[in-house]
C-alpha cells in the first residue's frame, strides 16, 4: 500500500446505482411474467363420414346431456349434467366416474356429448374435460339438426 493512501481507496468500486437499476429491472420482469398468460388446448375430433366400408360400432354409446338450469339464482349460467338416464345435477365432478361406470371400464366405448344450444360453453368444456379425465378415447359431439338459416 502506498504511503498516504487510505484503506478504502484501493478497494474495487461498487456502483450501487447500477446495482439498484438491475434489481429493479429484474423485479419488473418477474412482476410482469404472470400477466403473460400461458394458453392450453383441448384437442377433439369431429365426426367423419367414414363411408360404407367402415364397420359400425356395435357398443352402446354413452350419452352425456347438458341442459341449462331452469330454477334458482343465475339459472342461465348454470347447467345440469346427465349420463344416459342418470341425473347428476350440477355436480360435474362426478361425471368422469359416471362415464367410466356407464362404459363398464372400456375406454373405447363411444361417448356422445349432447349439449343444449342455450347452455354456456364452459359447461360443455367441463364435460369434455371430464371425458378426458375418464380416459375415454372416442368422444364426439352429437350432430345438430340440419342447418337452414344462414347466419350473418
Amino acid at each position: 500500500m502506498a504511503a498516504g493512501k487510505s484503506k478504502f481507496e484501493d478497494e474495487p468500486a461498487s456502483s450501487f446505482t447500477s446495482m439498484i437499476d438491475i434489481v429493479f429491472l429484474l423485479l419488473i420482469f418477474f412482476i410482469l411474467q404472470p400477466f403473460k398468460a400461458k394458453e392450453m388446448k383441448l384437442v377433439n375430433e369431429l365426426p367423419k363420414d367414414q363411408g360404407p366400408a367402415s364397420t359400425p360400432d356395435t357398443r352402446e354409446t354413452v350419452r352425456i346431456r347438458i341442459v341449462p338450469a331452469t330454477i334458482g339464482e343465475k339459472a342461465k349460467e348454470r347447467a345440469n349434467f346427465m349420463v344416459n338416464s342418470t341425473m347428476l345435477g350440477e355436480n360435474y365432478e362426478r361425471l368422469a366416474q359416471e362415464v367410466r361406470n356407464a362404459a363398464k371400464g372400456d375406454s373405447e366405448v363411444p361417448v356422445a356429448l349432447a349439449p343444449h344450444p342455450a347452455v354456456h360453453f364452459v359447461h360443455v368444456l367441463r364435460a369434455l374435460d371430464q371425458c378426458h379425465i375418464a380416459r375415454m378415447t372416442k368422444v364426439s359431439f352429437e350432430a345438430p339438426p340440419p342447418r337452414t338459416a344462414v347466419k350473418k
Partner: protein
Amino acid sequence: MGAKRKKGKADPSAACEGGGFEMTSMIDVTFLLIIFFMCVTELADQSKAKVELPVAEKAEEDTHIPGRVIINITEKGERMIMGQEYDDAGLSRLMQLEREASVKPGDQFPSRAILIRVDKNTEYEDVEHVMQLCMENKLWRIAFATKDPNAPEKRR
C-alpha cells in the same frame, strides 16, 4: 445509470480506455429491451381476441404454429379472426384455404388442428355452428383453447 467513480480509485475499464464499456449498463439496456419486446409482442398479437377462456384440467400446452387459423368466438357469438368479424361465407372460404394448407399431398386428414377460442359464457349454439362449418370443410381436428389452471386469476 453510469457508475460514478471516485478520484484515485481503480477503474475496471481503464485497461481499454476509450474503447471499453460498462457491463452493468449493458445488462441494464439488454433487460430493458427484453421487457419491451415481450410486452410489445404480447400486445400486438391480433390473432387472439379478448375472450375469457374456460379452465380444463386435462388440457395440453399450446405451441405456436405459424399460419394456423385461430377462430375467436366472443360472448355475443361474433366470430373474429385477426381482429375482423367473419360471416359464414367468409369463414368457409378461410377454412377451405386452411384445409389446402394443412392437408399434405396423399393424406386425407389435416395435419394440424384448427384452434377455436371460445368465451366461457358463449352459448353453445354459436360454437356448434362453427363446428358444423369445420365439418362441412373437412377440418375434423379442432382444439379448444383453455386457460392454464395454474395461472393466477386476473384482478378486475
